[in-house]
């Protein structure tokens, strides 16, 4: 385990997590959440948990991002209330 790489990816995880919460745009939030999942997948792979990394890459970064984008696609720019 290379600690520099580990630290860089951990920093990106934190940045992506805070960004996904703080950003106003829903689509941007969904994309940042996908980036967060992908960084977590890299972390699992670095720690040697390849099965978990595979699941995270396919479910977290892949399909759930598509679900979020599909749900955002069905929202409007302004709230109705």
């Amino acid at each position, binding site marked *: 385990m290379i600690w520099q790489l580990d630290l860089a990816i951990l920093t990106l995880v934190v940045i992506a997590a805070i960004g996904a919460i703080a950003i106003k745009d829903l689509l941007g939030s969904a994309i940042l959440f996908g980036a967060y999942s992908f960084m977590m997948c890299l972390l699992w792979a670095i720690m040697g948990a390849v*099965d978990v990394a*595979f*699941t995270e890459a396919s479910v977290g970064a*892949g399909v759930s991002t598509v679900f979020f*984008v*599909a749900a955002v*696609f069905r929202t409007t720019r302004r709230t109705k209330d």
Partner: protein
Amino acid sequence: MRILGIIVVILTGALLIYAMGDFPSWADPASPAHNHVSPRYIEKSLEQTSVPNIVTAVLADYRGYDTMFETTVVFAAGVVCFFLLRIPRKDEPTVRRYRHTLTGMTIRVKETRQIPPVLEEFERIDTLWAPHDLIIKTCCRILVPFLQLFGLYVIAHGHHSPGGGFQGGVILGASMILLAISHDLRTAIGRMSERVHAILCPAGVFIYAGTGALCMVLGLNFLDYGALAGILHVDPVTARSHGILIVEIGVGLAVMATMIWIYNNISSKGKYDEGL
């Protein structure tokens, strides 16, 4: 209220980080998890189940109940999405758009009077978002069979390499979702209808639970695949390996059908007409 929330979050985070100090350090051989559970799996799983990938052996054999109810949770998620979102009625057909394939001209048809006949040179397009891109369509169509082959490989090769029912099922589902995104939702539903999802989704859970029940009928514990040795004509160790493959196939079917089902319901607002 906002400041209060931030204070609570910071306090909880500080508490969690403080509690982290009591954890054993990473890869510590003296940590409790490495004392008796892990060595047993590492030493015994190959001779007990003849599965080289220990994660798969633990997931589908030693911790079979856990995986079975995970599959049930996935199935429940699909069914809940269906019941919440699906609109069965087909009334109020409002506006449809068609594209003339030769010239690229689009027309808009108000369907208050009569549904127009299907013509060869007109294709129906979505109202909100319908790019006309031959390159993307063709690339995705060529990619889909390879994705599905890879998904089947991941399910079948989970004994020897990372992967298994969940990952393979998600990849199989993603291939159909890719078809729905690159073409349109109607193409994907034409390939795999809602009825197929609704059958495959519980069928996967049924395969898993049925394998467990079959083991019980044959005289051993629930999900003890060694009982299948008589049916499969192999020794009990190989039977456990085959039993893992059978339940992984069930998991893969359930996950694949659920992923496509949820996507169809979300992207078309339950109308199954126009999607993303």
